[in-house]
């Protein structure tokens, strides 16, 4: 870097800052709201979050339909009860969502960010309220700069109160998934809820209020890992909201009474509507950039203008880089990346379906006593001690028969009568296996325990353990 000596380093950095204006939160973005296809899609996407608010009130067989009972270590999803022993399926659920994100992103960009993400969805609702209370962007900017009058104070207090209320409702709704909803509401309203619930609600309220009310696009820019992650999942075949610069450039103001053809200008009339509506405050005409959450609101805004000036829509549209460059675009099914993603998604779905179908009614673990490994009995037989840990996953009390195989002269002691298994928990039972020492030919012998429901013999499990005896 011999030439760097002469240059002042600051000028380089300043030049970079001028090139792409970076919003560090110094100025609140007041985005214009314009109707259109993508605006509607965004509402539909956000409305999926109604499940988050309404889900806890769903009832099923007189119980809460979906409940994550952490103290009881049980997840209830409609008829299904998932115990910690089955939680391996959670890994597949996470895999499913991770790959779904990857697949969708590689096909159509940050669909998650633009239409569904809680950060952008909540921000959208917050700014919608802001518009209802304070008016359109221009008025909002004026109000922000205006001196504090009683009217301004009234508007601001109402706005922040509603924001905090939404935050509170968000926090409470979150906690309702982990307990019985009506009971928890009663506890909240009578201020009897446990401290942990209050802390959770407080944390959610605070971060909803701060993130959706104040930090907004800065969360996407500076905090969110998925924003960074998804950017690297794009390729030339990913369709993204793109400004068609071949059609648009050179841009210029549309002048009345001037022959259009003589102007030699592109279709972009520099109305800056695409910038005005952008929730992250970027200019899509600068090309694809990290701030773009691909919500498509600039497409709506531009299409309205194109209709007005009687030019074809789609100056900004969902298009891939290949399309812009005029290269052929392969269909989705011919893109290996997408196929691999969907392959893994199918694998995880298959795994979850398999898991749910084979949840089973019983689970058995056998612990072999190690102190002592074996004991010589007075009748000359060798005795091994085992603890059977039997989990009854059904919701009724069960009676089971226990048997053991592995040696012709084996005798199982301690489980002569059927054992009682209370539902939903692990019951430990101690049993002994005796084999005459004279009949044993090796130090260790595999032993198979079988536990079978008395009334429903299909409910059965087997577990392999070992039988130890003195050195032969």
């Amino acid at each position, binding site marked *: 870097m011999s030439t760097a000596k002469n240059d002042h380093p*600051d000028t380089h950095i300043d030049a970079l800052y001028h090139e792409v204006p970076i919003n560090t939160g110094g100025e609140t973005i007041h985005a214009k709201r314009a109707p259109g296809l993508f605006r509607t899609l965004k509402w539909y996407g956000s409305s999926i979050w109604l499940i988050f608010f309404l889900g806890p009130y769903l009832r099923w067989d007189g119980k809460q339909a979906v409940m994550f009972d952490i103290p009881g270590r049980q997840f209830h999803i409609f008829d299904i009860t998932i115990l910690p022993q089955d939680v391996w399926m959670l890994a597949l659920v996470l895999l499913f969502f991770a790959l779904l994100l990857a697949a969708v992103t590689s096909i159509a960009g940050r669909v998650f960010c633009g239409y569904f993400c809680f950060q952008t969805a909540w921000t959208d609702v917050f700014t919608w309220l802001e518009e209802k209370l304070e008016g359109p962007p221009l008025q909002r900017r004026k109000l922000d700069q205006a001196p504090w009058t009683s009217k301004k104070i009234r508007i601001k207090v109402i706005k922040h109160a509603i924001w905090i209320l939404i935050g509170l409702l968000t926090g409470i709704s979150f906690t309702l998934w982990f307990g019985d909803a009506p009971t928890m509401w009663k506890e909240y309203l009578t201020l009897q809820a446990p401290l942990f619930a209050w802390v959770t609600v407080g944390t959610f309220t605070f971060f909803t209020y701060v993130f959706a009310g104040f930090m907004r696009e800065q969360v996407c820019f500076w905090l969110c890992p998925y924003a960074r992650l998804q950017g690297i999942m794009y390729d030339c075949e990913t369709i993204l909201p793109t400004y068609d610069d071949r059609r648009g450039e050179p841009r210029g103001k549309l002048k009345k009474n001037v022959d259009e053809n003589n102007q030699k200008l592109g279709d972009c009339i520099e109305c800056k509507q695409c910038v005005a509506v952008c929730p992250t405050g970027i200019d899509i005409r600068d090309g694809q950039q990290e701030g773009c959450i691909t919500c498509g609101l600039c497409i709506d805004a531009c299409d309205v203008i194109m209709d007005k000036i009687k030019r074809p829509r789609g100056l900004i549209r969902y298009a891939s880089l290949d399309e812009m460059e005029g290269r052929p675009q392969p269909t989705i099914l011919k893109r290996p990346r997408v196929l691999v993603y969907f392959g893994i998604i199918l694998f995880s779905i298959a795994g979850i379906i398999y898991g749910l179908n084979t949840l089973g009614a019983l689970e058995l673990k056998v612990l072999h*006593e*190690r*102190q*002592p490994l074996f*004991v*010589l*009995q*007075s*009748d*000359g037989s060798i*005795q091994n*001690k085992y603890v059977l840990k039997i989990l009854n996953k059904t919701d009724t009390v069960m009676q089971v028969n226990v048997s053991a195989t592995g040696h012709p002269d084996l005798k199982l002691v301690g489980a002569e009568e059927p054992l*009682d298994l209370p539902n939903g928990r692990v019951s*430990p*039972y*101690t049993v*002994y296996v005796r084999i005459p*020492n004279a009949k044993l030919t090796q130090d260790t012998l595999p032993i198979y325990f079988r536990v079978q429901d008395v009334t429903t013999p299909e409910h059965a499990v087997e577990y392999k353990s070992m039988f130890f005896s003195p050195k032969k």
Partner: protein
Amino acid sequence: MSDKKTNQVGDTGHVWDDNLRELLNEPPRWWMISFYASIAWVLVYFLLYPSIPLINSHTKGIMGWTAINEYKEDLSKIEQVRAPWENKLKGMSAAAILADSDLTNYTISSAKVLFGDRCAACHGAGGAGNPGFPVLADDDWLFGGSVESIQESIAGGRQGMMPGYASQISATEIDELANFVMALSQGNGDSQPAGKALFDSSGCSGCHGADGAGMHMMGSANLTDGIWRFSSQDQLESVKYTIANGVNTGEDTARNAIMPSFENQLSAGDITKLAVFVHQLGGGQ
């Protein structure tokens, strides 16, 4: 941006190495806020908790918090969890506990520590036994394997007695006797008629029984099974030694086999729990 500012900031007038000036930059506001907040925190903390050491004592703090109280509170919480079980167990006999599988499981879990503290040193973890100390996990009991007998053994201790025969019979006779006992343990005592005759004539059968199966009343060992009270690599030598020197005779050469009494060391409830625990080790009858 901030680089430009530095040029306008004054300095202390201290300059090192020609151009290193010490600037009068103010610390960032967030830093100052946390600085004052931590001072406030210290004051509050000093007020609430024990903090300043005095000559003989220390300030107690408004909350009256002490580490030992916190420990005691935690302990009482654990006891609260145990209380419903412990209340049920109060005054229950060992046999009644064994009849209830939940109570038995609780008792086993809770007696594990007691067994580790009081019993495992001699009897081994899990009752696996040690050289010179009986295995508790098998079904061979000197004084009986019912839970009542076990409870009695723990409470009162046990001390069997066997006289030494070195002064009464000859070394050859001891050998013959030992050979008979060894054969007996393998189920063919009849193969040693000389030893068998000695067994009857020397008074062995008085304690060990005519068939050699032992008596729980006296704590005499069962000689017909493969389990040895004093086991050794060379079992024949071990048997000869026991016959010659006896058990608990008071002589220095005699075998020592004393189980101490725990009546005065443990509560009756703890002894009951231990009896259940030992009974469930694998050999209870």
